[in-house]
């Protein structure tokens, strides 16, 4: 079987990329192995756990089951894009402050899904937070600390 490279142009964290990728190459692989953005994790690699969540045009998607060739013209954001100039974003800081990170493997995925949620709905109820996180699995924390971190960030932003 012949494999033909596919030219694809898209941006990652605001930086434009023009790549030639294999037609079956996943975005997870492109990010980790070509662009060396290893914050995005490979867990189940079948769309079940959310460790590989990134934002494509502001929507959370599992990068392990998304073909890079399908991303022409799209904007991708990864966990590396959440901190600017070495300073952590507010959600990242809240995760640290509330003990929401144990082994940390699931953390980048949770941060990306929650970033999408907070952009869409700046003051979600705890039910809405849980519902948004249906596709993110954490084996360590039991989720409570994660929900608390979100509550802390939303309380911060709605304080007069």
């Amino acid at each position, binding site marked *: 079987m012949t494999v033909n490279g596919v030219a694809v142009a898209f941006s990652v964290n605001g930086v434009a990329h023009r790549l030639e990728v294999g037609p079956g190459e996943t975005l997870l692989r492109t990010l980790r192995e070509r662009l060396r953005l290893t914050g995005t994790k490979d867990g189940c690699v079948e769309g079940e756990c*959310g460790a590989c969540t990134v934002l494509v045009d502001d929507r959370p998607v599992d990068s392990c089951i998304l073909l890079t060739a399908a991303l022409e013209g799209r904007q991708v954001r990864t966990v590396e894009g959440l901190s600017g100039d070495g300073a952590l974003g507010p959600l990242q800081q809240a995760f640290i402050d509330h003990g929401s990170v144990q082994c940390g493997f699931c953390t980048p995925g949770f941060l990306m899904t929650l970033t999408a949620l907070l952009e869409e709905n700046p003051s979600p109820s705890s039910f809405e937070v849980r519902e948004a996180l249906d*596709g993110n699995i954490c084996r360590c924390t039991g989720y409570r600390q994660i929900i608390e971190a979100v509550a802390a960030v939303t309380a911060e932003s709605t304080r007069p």
Partner: protein
Amino acid sequence: MQFHRAQTLDEALDLLGELGDDALVLAGGTDAVIQYLAGEIAPEAFVHIEGIEDLTTVSLNHRTTLGPLVTHRVLATDEVIGAVHPALAASARTVGGWQTQAVGTIGGNICNASPAADTVPPLLVADAYVTLASRRGRRRLALMDFFLDRRQTVMDPDEMLTAIDLDPLPRGSGEVYLKVGRRGAMEVALVGMAVRIGFAADGTVDSARIALCSVAPTPRRVPDAEKALIGSRLDGGVFDAAGEALRAAACPIDDARASASYRRRTLGGLLERAAIQCREAVTS
């Protein structure tokens, strides 16, 4: 393998016409990419259709028309769609997590022809039709006649699903989708049931449609169970008779997730719950 991006329906149909058997349509990829990565499918080419704007539209009229690229997320969250298609919206909410709903499409859910496709029972109770197009022409057929067997449909290799049309919920009717799984989220249906019931002013059932998934190789309506409810007030022994009809229509599989007898036993109780919820949805 090759990867083709189609920007218009014409381009996609040309590609499928040329490549036929060797090509596979790729929409959100939440089924196709997993199957490809697992080595279950090995197409010579993907024809990527996600960029075809015309296939993302929703039009609400005396019939609702959905483009095949409408995502589960849109079905799950759009308030206008939710008001006239509450069971369809509820079914989309049960598909995977946000990540899956954000890219997974209704067209892909139908064309993948899984026995457990959650959006199909609500479409069946809304009397859905599908339009298939190819370079050779167009045809429109009842969704019920689209499925041949598990993962098999009447669609030819050069054809594409281009539209789904269905009845909005009429006044005086209620509809629900109930899914039995082992946990709340991220679960394939053990049994999925959509019910749409129309009530006369005195509360008598004057129309009933019931559809199931995950109980047989293809999703299906159950006319005998529907007949058992019509003319009743959802009391007396109607659920015994209807439950019997559901069990007869179901030929569920035994697998690691649940036994066939568990799946069959849940059917009568599930219908009773669904029918009561339909009535509450009307009167409230």
